[in-house]
């Protein structure tokens, strides 16, 4: 049968489009997402009070290393997650952007605390605070609180893992991020 004629064939039943590539690639997607979600390495980045609650989430009682976050890297070149814990001010914003640019893809951002969502308690009558870290870098998960409990941070990490598990690696050309 000539290859050109397959377009005119009528298939029985219904045809459902899968995300580019069909069943082999969705299984590969699952494996890739499972591997990425379960071993996110955060960058050691904390500017103020939320950093202490982040350290509490790393201690023996709350223990984020159960979820794969144990190896906190000091350099952005080896990290895939940046947890922005603490207020960002105008002098620090270019530094944060530079750190984010130095991280290799795929990278994720968690905005921890009220200061990173919208400026927090420092919203009114301050001249130097950036009112929300999403003015500087794109954010995946926001955690409210001042400071949020370590359990809230663990909830956010699990939410991020769920978000990653729904990603697709093989995309149609017009769907690119």
């Amino acid at each position, binding site marked *: 049968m000539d290859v050109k004629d397959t377009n005119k064939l009528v298939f029985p039943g219904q045809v459902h489009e899968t995300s580019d590539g069909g069943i082999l690639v969705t299984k590969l997607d699952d494996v890739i997402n499972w591997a990425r979600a379960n071993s996110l390495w955060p*960058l*050691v*980045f*904390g*500017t*103020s*009070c939320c*950093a*202490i*609650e982040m*350290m*509490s989430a790393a*201690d*023996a*009682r709350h223990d984020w290393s159960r979820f794969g976050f144990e190896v906190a890297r*000091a350099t*952005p070149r080896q990290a895939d997650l940046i947890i922005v814990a*603490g*207020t960002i*001010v105008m*002098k*620090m914003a270019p*530094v944060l952007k530079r*750190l984010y640019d130095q991280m290799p893809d795929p990278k994720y951002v968690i905005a921890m605390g009220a200061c990173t969502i919208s400026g927090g*308690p*420092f919203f*009114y*009558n*301050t*001249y*130097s*605070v950036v009112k929300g870290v999403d003015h500087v870098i794109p954010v995946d998960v926001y955690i409210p609180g*001042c*400071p949020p*409990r370590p359990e809230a941070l663990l909830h956010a990490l699990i939410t991020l893992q769920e978000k990653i598990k729904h990603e697709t690696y093989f995309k149609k050309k017009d769907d690119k991020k």
Partner: protein
Amino acid sequence: MSNLLGDPIVTEEGEFVINVGPQHPSTHGVLHLKIWLDGETIKKVQPHLGYIHRSIEKMSESLSYRNFIFATSRMDYLSAHINNQACALAVEKGLQIEATPRAQIIRILMAELTRLSSHQLWWGCTGLDLGAVTPFFYAFREREAIMDIMEETCGARLTQNYMVPGGVMYDIHPNFQHRVKDVMKQVKKYLHEYDELLTGNVIFENRTKGVGYLSKEDAISYGCTGPTARASGVSCDIRKWNPYDGYEKVQFEEILGTSGDCYGRYMVRMAEMKQSIHIIEQLIDNIPEGDFQAKTKNVLKLPKGEFYQRVETARGELGVYIVSDGAASPYRIKYRSPNFSNLSALEHMALGSKIGDLVAIMSTIDLVIPDVDR
């Protein structure tokens, strides 16, 4: 030779200029140091501040006298109760009232619990900076127990907003007294582990003995306070010099050292932990009955004038200077923070030592950078 921003990377004398921070695991916050190196020896240290300058002083000029206290919890967040106590005392000085006796004892208990938990976190982070990971987990074990007590009474673990002008915001929880006694038993039982892990360790002693010497005259001239200055022999504990809130009736010793190096500062803080436990044990069974807050008006207005209150935080002397012109908001507030002055002595202490010594010096000065920048 210079980089794209025009900063020199190699000077004419052949010294390297490198950056430590702002993002660095051992700067305890966002501190940017430019160090001039000859090989590995430090020739000059230039701190660059302002990466967490949140304009707290300007913001406080538009808040009322009850509201501005919350921002000080976020300045030196490891001594949050003590910072709030300083602000409440300064406003009480202006209103010429005193906190009730019950509130004063509750304030001292909360302040000493805060000091103890702050020193525990300092000890864990000192170990972490110098390469030992285990002390970090041991320190947080006791600190979590203390934060549970705070949470039950004050509602928050870290930035409690519990002290108000006139007393405290709510009464203590009925469980407070026996939980504190349990935690004191636990801390006393495990405090010897701290000594076993770090104090007698030969690597730790080699890294801290003789490093970062600060003489007594220099400590006074640089304005250093707290354990940083007490290890050099300067007697500066505000709880003894200008007692407040009933500290004059409490028995405790001011710990002074003589060596002035990193090891001396370390030993002063370890001894201060034991003094805090001693203060808590004296007071926990003797909380007087009565009101937890003195009666004040809803809208507080301070008379025209200036009011200065000094307290002893875990890191040194905090001064709250309120200038009032009779309105319902302060005209000018200045926070004389201990870390700002302690940091100015860093260059003096670090000249001539190696980069590894710089880390040891920074961790024993016990810096909290949001307190430097306010």
